[in-house]
């Protein structure tokens, strides 16, 4: 992945990214230096916000933010949209666990293809940004097999699902190499 191949229009930020961006702001308000991971996530978030037209989070992340202190959470909720689960999202997530992804990782990856933006009626995102290096490496390593499995699944689904695609997966550290 290079800067020229990483130009996503729509990006799903995983919960770990949002958590660290939130905590980076907590540290600023508290007057305590942020951790390297918090800096990494906050700078990646700031960069991605300049190149992507749509920033998404999952419903779970949205619900967590709604229960957090709004002085920190409200701007993040305002700058992102929650994706809903389109039909077959969990079915694809279960297939992904066969590639040794955890349930939590499989759900995030499945949102990348079956996450529904109710407002724009679009499905899936072009890229997922994660703090999880293992997830990104594993996805990259098994991508060809995952793609075959994905194509085998969607070919048997009704028409609107047949156009769905797999997202790119990039870590916050990788995003910083493009800044």
């Amino acid at each position: 992945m290079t800067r020229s191949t990483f130009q996503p229009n729509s990006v799903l930020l995983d919960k770990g990214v949002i958590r660290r961006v939130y905590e980076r702001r907590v540290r600023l308000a508290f007057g305590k230096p942020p951790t390297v991971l918090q800096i990494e996530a906050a700078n990646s978030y700031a960069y991605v916000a300049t190149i992507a037209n749509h920033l998404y989070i999952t419903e779970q992340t949205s619900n967590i933010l709604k229960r957090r202190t709004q002085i920190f959470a409200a701007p993040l909720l305002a700058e992102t949209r929650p994706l809903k689960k389109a039909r077959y999202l969990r079915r694809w997530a279960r297939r992904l666990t066969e590639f040794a992804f955890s349930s939590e990782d499989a759900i995030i990856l499945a949102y990348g293809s079956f996450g529904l933006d109710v407002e724009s009626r679009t499905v899936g995102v072009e890229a997922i940004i994660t703090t999880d290096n293992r997830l990104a490496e594993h996805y990259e390593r098994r991508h060809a097999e995952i793609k075959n499995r994905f194509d085998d699944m969607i070919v048997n689904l009704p028409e609107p699902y047949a156009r769905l695609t797999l997202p790119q997966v990039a870590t916050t550290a990788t995003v910083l190499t493009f800044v």
Partner: protein
Amino acid sequence: MEKLTVDADGKITIPPEVIQKRGLHPGDELALVEAPEGLLVYQGGVDDKTSAWWNRLDDGQRLLAETEARRYESLSDKERDSIWNEEADSIEAEAESDEIDLPTK
């Protein structure tokens, strides 16, 4: 892109012109980020989004943010993890009732 060389003591020297350009001073901290592509030396400071958020807050809101930040920072790692792991999604077929069917055109 600047090339840095590791010396015999494992230290690297940042060229003076870069130090001057970036406004670095003795004691400033730089983050070393391990990316799949290699090591990134990253200058700290506040990113644009965080900075814009902070600058929008008035004195009263900053005081409130500090109070809430103190409360959050006093939580244990386990308590913070618990907050961010609420309502984990199930991938089981029994949970599929909330999935939305796409309209056929």
